[in-house]
């Protein structure tokens, strides 16, 4: 199980990348800052960075809104 934003729990799958996790969370916004266990993941590595079971992931949506 992966905990996202200290709020949601997402089922971990072997080989799961950051990109897969974003899809599983239905996070479609293109501009996010992702950290895994407190470490910032460069955007270029979202397709290759493998998340481990029980990782704590933070996905900050950067959006200004109204």
């Amino acid at each position, binding site marked *: 199980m992966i905990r996202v934003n*200290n709020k949601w729990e997402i089922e971990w799958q072997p080989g799961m990348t950051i990109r897969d996790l974003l899809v599983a969370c239905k996070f479609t916004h293109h*501009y996010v*800052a992702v950290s895994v266990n407190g470490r910032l993941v460069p955007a270029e590595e979202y397709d290759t960075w493998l998340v481990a079971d029980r990782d704590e992931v933070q996905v900050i949506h950067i959006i*200004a*809104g*109204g």
Partner: protein
Amino acid sequence: MEMKEITQERIEALRAGHKVLAEFHYEPRPVERGYAGKTLYVNVSTNTIGAKPVDERMKRTFIGGRGFDLWLLWNAVKSDTRWDSPENEIVIASGPLGGIVQYPGTGKSIAVTISPLTGIPVDSNVGGYFGPLLKFSGFDALEVQGIADREVIVFIDGNAGLVQIMEAPEESVNSHILAEEIVALFGQTPQEKQGVSSVSSGVGAEHTLIGCLNFSFYDPRRKLTRLKQAGRGGIGTVLRKKKIKALVVKYVGVKGDSNHPTDLETIQQVGAKMHREIYERDPIMFTMRLDGTNHLTKIMNDYDILPVHNFRYGSHPEAEKIYSPHFQKYFVYDAPDGCWYGCTLACAKFAAGLELRTGPYKGQTVTVDGPEYETVAGIGANCGIWDAHAVLEANFYCDAYGIDTISFGTAMAFAMECYEEGILTPEITGGLKLNFGNADAMLEALHQMSRGEGFGVIIGQGVRRMKQIFVERYGADPQFLQDIGMEAKGLEYSEYVTKESLAQQGGYGLANKGPQHDEAWLIFMDAVNNQIPTFEDKAEALHYFPMWRTWFGLNGLCKLPWNDVEPADNRTRYKGIEAAKVPEHVENYVRLFRAMTGRDDVQSGADLIRMSEAVYNFQRIFNLKMGSGTREHDAIPYRSVGPVTDAEYESRAERYDQQLRELVGVDPSGMTTAEKRQALRRYREAQYEKLIDAVYKRRGWNERGIPTLEKVRELGIDFPEVVALIEAHTQKGT
């Protein structure tokens, strides 16, 4: 805004109708360190005109813009002044940073009045050239009082040092034609035309309480005027009540140093850095230059925040039909579109080639600025109208008739839900079939507002009055209407679903003027990013961000260049909500303010926040003066807190059931939907009250939401009338 030429014959006819009723001569003086040093007072009842000095205390306490507006209005009205009383004013100001041409987003005007919808001050921040041109003409603010006995124009010639009130019987009322007429009347060359800006409204504002002001600027490339709206709170209704067709300013000769700043070089440096950042970062961030604010529609739909069917739901399968690409075909991209010189963020979108299918201008091909996200979400999604052309046509007519698209969208959505619920029938609506999705009925109601007839006029009274009318005349259930009527303090909600964000419920409910998102926009930070989980975190955000956003209005600025683009390293250098403050941009504003005014005591963002805090608290106390401003007026409709109906609950049953188990401590199995709704409601309403307690405490207010004497002394707003008001309310303890 309309493509038709105004003939010389027409101009002569307009001129022939002009009769000067009052005249005031003054010596134009240059602006110094961002301030003109005077404000202009015009009374259209008595036909008097005069100038008032701006002293050091006024500058220090109220800074400018919205601060000056509120101070002047406070001194003009009594606690029993209504929106249509002669002493009510429309006050318009730029601010000390207004009119800078080297930094993006500096051309805003802030308009304030006692609102017909709320009975308290409303402030509205708007583009167009009026505010800066007014300042360069010699006035930090314009206050207009009185009610004229005939149609008038107020004309300020900043080059000649002349102010006139003139009778204007022949001009059009609807802004899209009137603004063209004004430019033709007062500007001969393209350069002169660019120096003319008008403030006007339209016939819709006369028959409703949701009238907006249109601020114009002349676009020399397209050879036409364009309009930006001070939409919220019915200021256009007040303008038309005063029988003012237009407020006009003419000032030719804006230069890079027209503000005579203390340190122009710093302003140029900070500006150059910001322009570079926008060019590099906007294409990969929010594409404001390409899409404007409507890029938000898709995001809000994806995250269940787009208001659908009167805020019942947060998304809809057909929403794709009103995403940006469906509007892009109308946009003209031949030049960057800023609403003041030097705005490289350039989010002002210009739609052309719109052939009107309804109304008095049917068959004409027109242009319109926009649409903004709020218009698309309010008139499109919230009314279930998945039709880009219909939304754009309604946008055009709202602007032309002088109607606020946000209040229009939210009020229409409310009427549509009442119709679908059987509270309204075709007999009551005069045959209008107000089902969600009926674009023809929506447009016909809008045209009725312009003609002052039919059920459209009732919708134009706004949600609060509709609730009252539907209960009194048609026997509707008052509790149900209270739950689904999306207004607070009398103002219609702007277009975000807040059910899953307690902080944003507070952002709307606690906003001084009523539920408009420009004070606080915390939905993602709260509901998605989960960055402010505790009551204290939310209260801190509901202190910092409303104060920070207030600062733009004090200075004549647009908030978009603050956080609609960010430096590349913002998220690596700063963590948590610090990053959301965009500290490098805050530092830009500190430097700009110091460089403009020469105030060396302003050293950090905290100094800017303190400026806002004084004005913000003053506005809260102004609400108190007008009979509002206490806890009960911060109440919000349950539709903004949680699901009102079984259908809403069932549509997100998994989410709500889980919350009952995990947050409320109730096992939903075996409960009916109505029982589950009630259990959730008790919990969520209690959460909102706890939030209010936390925010009041953080802001230095008592448990009834009144700033303490200690607080107003600390902020330097302890004027005798302020102290007396607080004492009276504190002693009453009611």
